[in-house]
């Protein structure tokens, strides 16, 4: 087996294959980063919505809770298929990458909103009372007092979620998105050794997630000391 690897390596690492893998890596990273960024934005919105006590927002809150509780319980693969079969007829021609990214958004919104909510809830009620009696508006209170104090609770699990999600995007290969896992399959189908093909893919996943884990550890340390 080892001899086969040595024999194939020069053929495998040609310009064409490297670009192909780099593009696949870009799609994996793209789905994760775009999906989780959008998810973070909407997750924050939902978390704030769920914290507010305004009666006018009651119906919206109920929808948000139903959404979060449902989507956290559906396997990612199922979300991918649902999004595919809903979007296809509505917007024919949408790229598979687009469909997969929307699916990531849907799932990450649900998970990240829970992470953010627990962060917001970690800030003692007294901090809010102090702000309210000083005439802070709800938004000022959120951005000047509550969020700055909740980052240290939010950042570690949120980055852990994103790192984990880099792996889960491999399910998008089931749709035919040419991300890392699918690229590995294609290379192996072309006749390369599976150990070589998927070995390189393994390394690519590691190269994507390890720096993020380090960044998370660094942020965690910095936030904890402030």
């Amino acid at each position, binding site marked *: 087996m080892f001899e086969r690897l040595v024999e194939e390596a020069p053929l495998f690492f040609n310009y064409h294959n490297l670009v192909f893998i780099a593009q696949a890596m870009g799609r994996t990273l793209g789905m994760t980063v775009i999906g989780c960024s959008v998810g973070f934005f909407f997750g924050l919105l939902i978390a704030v919505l769920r914290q507010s006590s305004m009666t006018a927002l009651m119906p919206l809150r109920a929808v948000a809770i139903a959404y979060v509780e449902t989507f956290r319980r559906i396997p990612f693969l199922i979300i991918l298929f649902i999004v595919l079969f809903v979007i296809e007829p509505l917007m024919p021609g949408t790229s598979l990458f687009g469909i997969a990214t929307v699916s990531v958004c849907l799932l990450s919104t649900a998970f990240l909103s829970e992470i953010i909510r627990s962060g917001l809830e970690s800030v003692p009620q007294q901090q809010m009372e102090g*702000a309210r*009696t000083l*005439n802070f508006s709800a938004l000022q209170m959120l951005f000047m007092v509550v969020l700055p104090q909740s980052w240290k609770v939010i950042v570690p699990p949120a980055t852990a979620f994103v790192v984990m999600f880099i792996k889960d995007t491999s399910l998008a290969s089931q749709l035919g998105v040419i991300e890392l896992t699918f690229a590995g399959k294609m290379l192996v189908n072309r006749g390369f050794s599976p150990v070589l093909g998927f070995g390189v893919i393994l390394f690519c996943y590691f190269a994507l997630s390890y720096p993020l884990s380090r960044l998370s550890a660094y942020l965690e340390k910095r936030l904890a000391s*402030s």
Partner: protein
Amino acid sequence: MHHLEIKDLCASYDKDPVLKGVTLSSDKGEVVSLIGPSGSGKSTLLRALIGLTPPSKGQVFVGGEAVDYSSRRSLRALRGEMAIVFQQYNLFQNMTVLRNVSIAPIKIQKRSRSDAEKEAKSLLEKVGMAGKQDAYPEELSGGQQQRVAIARALATRPEILLLDEVTSALDPERVNEVLDTIRGLTSAGITMIIVSHEMAFVREISTRVAMMDDGKIVEIGPPSQIFDAPEQRRTRDFVSKILKH
């Protein structure tokens, strides 16, 4: 016209009535202290006044104007004139001392940064915290935090200051530094409503003392009356128990 007038004020915590009709008024610059056993509604009265526990019944007038606790605008106006200092200081943990004191003047009252910071520094000096302006709250002792909290409350230039058991969470040797700070305020013409268990301090600083029990004021009068010659039996019992300690 009284500076602050409270009429038949009621408030509940989780459906439990805690304030059961409090009537009290205070002239400008007066220091009114609330004493009484735990659970008698003293802190709730302060929280109700500033709208943290919205009153369920009754009226509050500030400078002759009725406060509407269901109206955001009215609450905003009220909190522009009234400030509260909490038992647990409630300083913003993510901000330095200077920022804690200057943020409301800058961001809420839209005063210029240089102006607000200058005033904040002079207030910090007044409460004896000038050297700590760049520290974070968690680096300070309870007494120091409480003095910063007083400076923060004063920075919004309130006409009425509510002090809610401001020394109760402090180490005994830290109590005096905070009480000294409050003593320094009485000449500033700020109307103060103080909830305190420091009886010697209450007696010294108050123009009037109100004895509260079970959500009501049972007796109100100058300190000499409340402490030396209380008219109500409930006051007599409470004061004699407290002063024996």
